[in-house]
């Protein structure tokens, strides 16, 4: 019984070390490739289109309705203490500092991160990646680096759209549903939102874009076991990316705010 338990703990520890090592080495290889080989510019832009432009509609909708709900919820609390004039600032700060980057990253993970894993995973199980290798095409340069760069670069733009539409959503609710003063909404945003808040949110979005593409490409490249394997890898990719994004968000917030 005790030996079985020790075996289990030992094996689990070894597995964690092995996966962490593999995951880190994958990134090291990607970084080395990015700095030592020519960037595939056309492929990077194509990925920006797939990860960014094609995700825009869901990101805008998410931002818009998050802003609307946030305005409603904030109103419920603030009307009790007579602070309705601060709703704009709360909505804007919430969206810019947290909800915009995090929700954008989670939505893009579900849409584009899963697609990255599924696409590369399918290429692995159908030997397309082996074919690239036998043709002496650098697989990291061809498949991995453009996706990581594209995702890291495009996520801040998506987050920016999400923040903007969220603030618009909050405005619509405050002015047209709750019939509050539009001047209060605008003024509180101007008074309390600073450029550093926006910079912080965009930095977070870039880090999240990096994480979701790193996990997505890693899980794709290590897919095995046929169609079922692709399904498992895709699920693991979305779950792992989402959890990593949420955990990283906490530490990033502490780091950015020097807390």
């Amino acid at each position, binding site marked *: 019984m005790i030996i079985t338990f020790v075996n289990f703990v030992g094996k689990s520890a070894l597995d964690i070390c092995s996966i962490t090592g593999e995951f880190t080495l994958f990134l090291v290889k990607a970084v080395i490739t990015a700095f030592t080989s020519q960037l595939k510019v056309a492929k990077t832009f194509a990925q920006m289109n797939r990860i960014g432009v094609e995700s825009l509609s869901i990101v805008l909708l998410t931002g818009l309705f998050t802003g609307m709900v946030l305005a409603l919820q904030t109103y419920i609390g603030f009307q009790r203490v007579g602070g309705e004039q601060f709703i704009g600032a709360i909505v804007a700060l919430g969206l810019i500092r947290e909800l915009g980057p995090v929700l954008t990253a989670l939505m893009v993970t579900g849409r584009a991160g899963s697609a990255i894993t599924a696409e590369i995973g*399918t*290429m692995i199980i*159908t*030997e*397309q990646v*082996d*074919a*690239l*290798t*036998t*043709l*002496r*095409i650098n697989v990291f340069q*061809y498949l991995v680096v453009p996706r990581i760069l594209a995702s890291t670069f495009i996520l801040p733009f998506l987050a920016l759209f999400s923040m903007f539409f969220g603030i618009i959503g909050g405005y619509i609710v405050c002015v047209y549903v709750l019939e509050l003063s539009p001047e209060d909404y605008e003024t509180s945003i101007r008074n309390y939102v600073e450029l550093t808040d926006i910079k912080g949110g965009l930095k977070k979005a870039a880090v999240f874009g990096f994480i979701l593409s790193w996990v997505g490409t890693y899980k794709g490249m290590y897919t095995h076991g046929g169609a079922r394997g692709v399904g498992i890898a895709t699920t693991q990719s979305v779950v792992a990316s989402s959890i990593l994004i949420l955990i990283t968000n906490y530490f990033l917030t502490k780091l950015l705010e020097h807390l």
Partner: protein
Amino acid sequence: MMKANTHKTKIKIVDLQKEFDGHWVSRGINLDIPEGLMTVIIGRSGEGKSVLLKQVIGLIKPTSGHIFVDGVDITTLSGNELNECYKKFGYVFQFAALLDSLNVYENIGITLIENGMPYDEVLPIVKEKLKLVQLSEDTLEKYPSELSGGMRKRVGLARTLVTNPEIILYDEPTTGLDPITSRVIHELMFDMQKKLKITSVVISHDVETFKYADKVALLHDGIIRYFGDAKTIWESDNPYVYQFIRGLTEGPITKEIPYFKDKA
């Protein structure tokens, strides 16, 4: 060690072993592949023929043993040296492994395109290779999903020919094809080998392949059990060959579907 006596050896495999999680799929393979000839490797499904081919081209790292190509041990090479050596190789995959997102032109010319060659230089090369595999230029704009199995294999072969390889490894090139298309593919492989003096290594279950091959090797239980001339294979009294090519259930090759076995 199995040797071909009359031709210079292009690939020499020495005591090659491969283990997957405690199971040995290659248990000490020794084989000399003669230059400029077509060598067919036969054996039951699951015997590790594809694994052998993938070890030769470096897609799978051997557990131990040596692979010499033109006298150079590629298992000791790394980086650019290894890359240079692999330039001699082409690999035709079992299901062609064409890139789904690229059309025929891009699939065939991918090596040139990725090396920055302009379109007007790539196109004539792609058309030339397309002609070699007897496909019309109408197929250039088509995507893999729009091609038949035989056409895909031809495109896969054309893609390999673009790199002007000295050695082509074929992984079950006629699997899943009808007899007529199989014959077309066999004749194409034979033509390529004779015209371009390419050393061909073919993995196949198809006894038709013997008609076009020069040498045959039989892999069973992780070891080469036979290596000899394809022309005389039907007269061979080697018990493994005798059983395999006639499809007999009785003989040294066991009835069970082979699976990676312990080395013991």
